[in-house]
């Protein structure tokens, strides 16, 4: 608790920068690809911090017990794993992230509506705009790389994000689902940040080449079966993927 104040201050500062970046992004695309990449990496890293949303949510919903915390991480809402992301070509990667962020935005909005008059409400509001900012930058990045984003097919992108609304879910289960979603969101953004860092490191650093198209297809078709993993230590071969 003692370290919270400076951490929060740093977070506020970072968020302010993020807002500035977003504001710039919404005005128009940057013509500098490295600058945009750097900005994207920063945005992804910042939003990958669980202190932004997950921790406040856990505290608000009284989920701060070892069992419930573990439950949040056991079956997180499915997002493309880091391996999957790394295996994608750059256009596909951007498209995937863009699409996923769209779903995240929608989910954040739903979560926001579930938590009126609470402390996390303004955080969710801010997070929603953060995600919008990152999406804008990804759009610009794709434009800069001459690979304009295709409008994702909603049917293709609708894998494993929002819980079913046909029956009134248990509030307890909703809390756990939301917690898992937030955990997955932060993890996904962290993975995105790391992939962007590899981009920044240059073409000399080869990206892991895997049957990316099949993986992407697998994620699109049955993303719920793809367990996100932060591990990138698997001895898969890395090859440079040409644009």
């Amino acid at each position, binding site marked *: 608790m003692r370290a919270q104040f400076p951490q929060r201050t740093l977070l506020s500062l970072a968020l302010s920068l993020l807002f500035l970046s977003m504001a710039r992004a919404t005005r128009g695309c940057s013509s500098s690809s490295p600058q945009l990449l750097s900005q994207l990496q920063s945005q992804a890293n910042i939003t990958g911090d669980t202190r932004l949303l997950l921790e406040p949510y856990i505290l608000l*919903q*009284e989920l701060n017990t070892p069992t419930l915390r573990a439950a949040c991480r*056991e079956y997180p809402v499915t997002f493309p794993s880091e391996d999957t992301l790394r295996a994608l070509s750059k256009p596909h990667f951007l498209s995937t992230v863009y699409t996923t962020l769209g779903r995240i935005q929608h989910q954040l909005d739903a979560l926001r509506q579930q938590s009126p008059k*609470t402390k996390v409400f303004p955080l969710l509001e801010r997070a929603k705009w953060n995600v919008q900012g990152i999406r804008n930058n990804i759009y610009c990045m794709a434009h800069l790389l001459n690979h304009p984003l295709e409008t994702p097919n909603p049917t293709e992108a609708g894998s494993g994000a929002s819980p079913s609304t046909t029956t009134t879910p248990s509030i*307890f*289960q909703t*809390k756990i689902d939301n917690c898992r979603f937030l955990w997955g969101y932060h993890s996904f953004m962290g993975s995105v940040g790391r992939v962007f860092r590899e981009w920044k490191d240059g073409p000399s650093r080869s990206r892991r080449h895997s049957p990316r198209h099949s993986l992407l297809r697998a994620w699109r078709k049955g993303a719920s079966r793809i367990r996100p993993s932060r591990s990138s230590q698997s001895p898969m071969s890395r090859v440079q993927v040409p644009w």
Partner: protein
Amino acid sequence: MPSYRLQTIRPMAFSVALHPAFLLVVLSLKTSRSEVLGEPFQLTPEILTVSTESKLQQVNLQWTVPNLTHQELKMAFQIEISRINTSNIVWVENYSTTVKWNQLLHWNWKSEIPLECVTHFIRIRAMVDDAKYLPQNSWSNWSSWKEVSVQVSVAPNTLLIFPDNKLLEEGSNVTICLLYGQYLYNVSCMLQKEPIHGEQLDSHVSLIKLNNVVFHSVSGTNIHCKAMNATKMIFGTVLFVSKVLEEPKNFSCETQDFKTLKCSWEPGVDTALVWSQQDSQSYTLYESFSGRRELCDHRNSHNWQITDDSQETYNFTLTTENNLRKRSVNLIFNLTHRVHQKAPHDVTLENIDARKANMTWKVLSRGNNYILLCQIELQHEREVIHEHNVSVHMSASYLFSDLEPDTKYKARVRCADANHFWKWSDWAQKEFCTPEAAPSQALDVWRQVRSENGSYVVTLFWKPLLKSQANGKIVSYNIVVENQDRLSESEHYSVPAPALGTQLSLDPCSYKIHITANNSVGVSPESVMVLSNDSGHEEVHEKRIKGTKDGFHISWEPTSGDALGYVVDWCVHSRDQHCDLQWKNLGPNTTSTNITSGAFKPGVRYNFRIFEKSMQQKAQLLEKQTGYTQELAPLENPEVTINNFTSNSFILSWPSYDSDFQSAFIEGYHVYLKSKEMQCHPKGKRMTLPDYWVLCEYEIKDPEQKAFTVENLRPESHYEFLVTPYTSAGQGPNETFTKVMTPDENSNMLLKIILPMTLCVLLIIIACYWKSQWVKEKCYPDIPNPYKSSILSLIKSKKNAHLIMNVKDCIPDVLEVINKVEGPKTQCIVSGNPHNEDVSMKPPSSVPTEDGSSGSVPFFFFENFTYDQSAFDSGSHGLIPGPLKDTPCQLGLLTPPEKLLNVLEKDYMKSLAESPTEETSLIYVSQLASPMGGDKDSLATNPPMPGHCSEYKMQMAVPGRLPSLALSENNSLTSEILLGQGEQ
């Protein structure tokens, strides 16, 4: 505790209403017959439906009483509820009601266990309980058991927890039920972080009872369970525990304008919960006379519009409500008694002068007969200095008087209904400042006079005027000095504020000094002081006074009856140079006063002077008084010196203390003397100490006595002494004794002899030193004059005038050089041998030693033309004469005088004495200054082997007229000159 609610539903079915009149008639007849007969009859109820409300855990029962022949009949019903099986009765309840013909009856029951978890059974029976009829003695038959259950299916490996999302109030109890699916076992549950345990109801149901639940969070209290077997899925439910709804407090309503009633209250804790489980409690106002009900727009207030001007009395009910509870408070009042007047407006303040100001204001009036009570306050520095109430109709004014000039004030006014006081209005206020006025008070002045270089140095002091006396900001102080002796002369001085004193240098005359203070408006009354010629020179007796912790009581004797008053002055810091003079003015009839000050310190002497002020404003010193608030023991002992120190007495003396630095009045001194086996003077106190030491204590009661003679001491003995002052508070510090040792008895005598002798010797030494040159000349000149030598007298006595040889007459035959010659000057010395090397390479063929042997001594021989050839010829010398050659240079030698004297006094004299002819030739001998040093005998017998570049001390008899030659002392050339037969 389960509760129930009964609903009697009137027959609604249209068919029932249209029952044929025929049937009614038949029924009436039948009833009449029973009444007449008085037969008991049984009416068995029939359960129509049993339904459940799962969320409320409620069972709803609906039944009817068939065969009821009466239009209305009062009946009692008994309902039984069993759980799991019919024999396990958990609830029995009697319920009485009036049953109408063909009526559907309703009853409900809330189960403490969620209905999903266990099956319940319900049945009912009835009994006529109507006084109009013969009472039925027994219950009817039971209806058949009806099963009550909520069907849920539990999938394998899953757990269902009931109730789900349960809303309950803090402090209530709840039973949680767990339904296990197939293959699920070993389930553990936790309430937040605390484990909770239940009881197993059957193989797939267990119950957990929670009592007195507490509020955790607005987002609910999580109960989560986890099975330890195959699956690690987590199951849970949320209990939404609401805080208990509180009753609104301090509910009141009032109006300011008779158009709106503002009602307010303290709402209490917010019972809202998230997840849409419960909103914040609502507040509703209901006015019973008008029948209006309004939902309040704020949780602590509501504005109620007055729509009916004629309504005077209001009866409000404030109801607050949430999902669990409802609470109400009531308020009834007359509108005219709840008028909260608006704050007065148009407040103005007008300064009439420096001490008066007029305030005016207006109020909101409701008619000519409406009187308001207004309260006026005058504040200065947030302190109310004036308060007044006035009755006001429309507008009013109030005059503030006795104000202080140049002062900030705040005037404020508030009003209320004079007839039915309810509440003061808010304050309407205005700040104002009064203008300055001339200072109203003369300065309190005093002076200090001292003489310096034949003139007065007068330091004037004055105290600052109080704010109430200054009446504005003091700009400067004016001083007018009138010379009383020369009335035409007066000096004007202006001292800018905030100075509180000044110094004047005046000629020794009488003066009248006028001092005034100025502000921007005017001048204060003047303060006058008169200085006479003798001011500052008064000599009066100083009296000692004793102070207390609080200060000093000063009293004095007046000298004249026409004193204008008295002044007592003193320094706050008597020990410092900065005196910080204080004074106190006293009236003419005063002869004593108490001087108190927080600055008085214990152990500090304070000096007070009492002056009498004459009618001419002249101050005459009456008395001096001095004292301490608290006397302390001396902090230090005097520095003692010893005088007249003899073998059996000495005198101790010490300087006097500066009175201002005394921590108390010194009353005397204690002298302590310590020694071994000592006899004390009869006036002293004797104390025996360990190791045969004796301590004598002498008391000097006169503080002015600063010496003490210690007598009857033993010579050559150790004594120790200590002198310490004492005051009323004790004596000085116990410091280390000073040690002394008495001298020997003869030491004085010795001193008398030794000292003059020493002085004499010193004088002689000084004289000798002073005349050293003369003595040298006389006693041991560098070159002795043989004619002046004492030898001469010997010679003369032997009548041989030719004994003294003239150097001129001597022709040296041989010169012997004993060393390697360095430097070019040796070339001058060695005759016929221009190179030293040549000389040194010439080995001494035979140098006779004392024993006659010839050693390898590196002697060099020179021809000495001053030497008498006859001396060689005598054969008494073993040297081989060299060829006589002319030498271009003359030999010059420096001779140390002492060696010369030696030669003269010893060797030479000896040779003379041993000379058989009395015409012995002079023998000049050079002695080698060798490490063997000074041993002439050894030198003679074993001539040292000179080292390389060895130095030689030279001896030579040189005629007085022989000029000094080129050789100098530092020349390394040394020589030995052997003349004739010598010992060496």
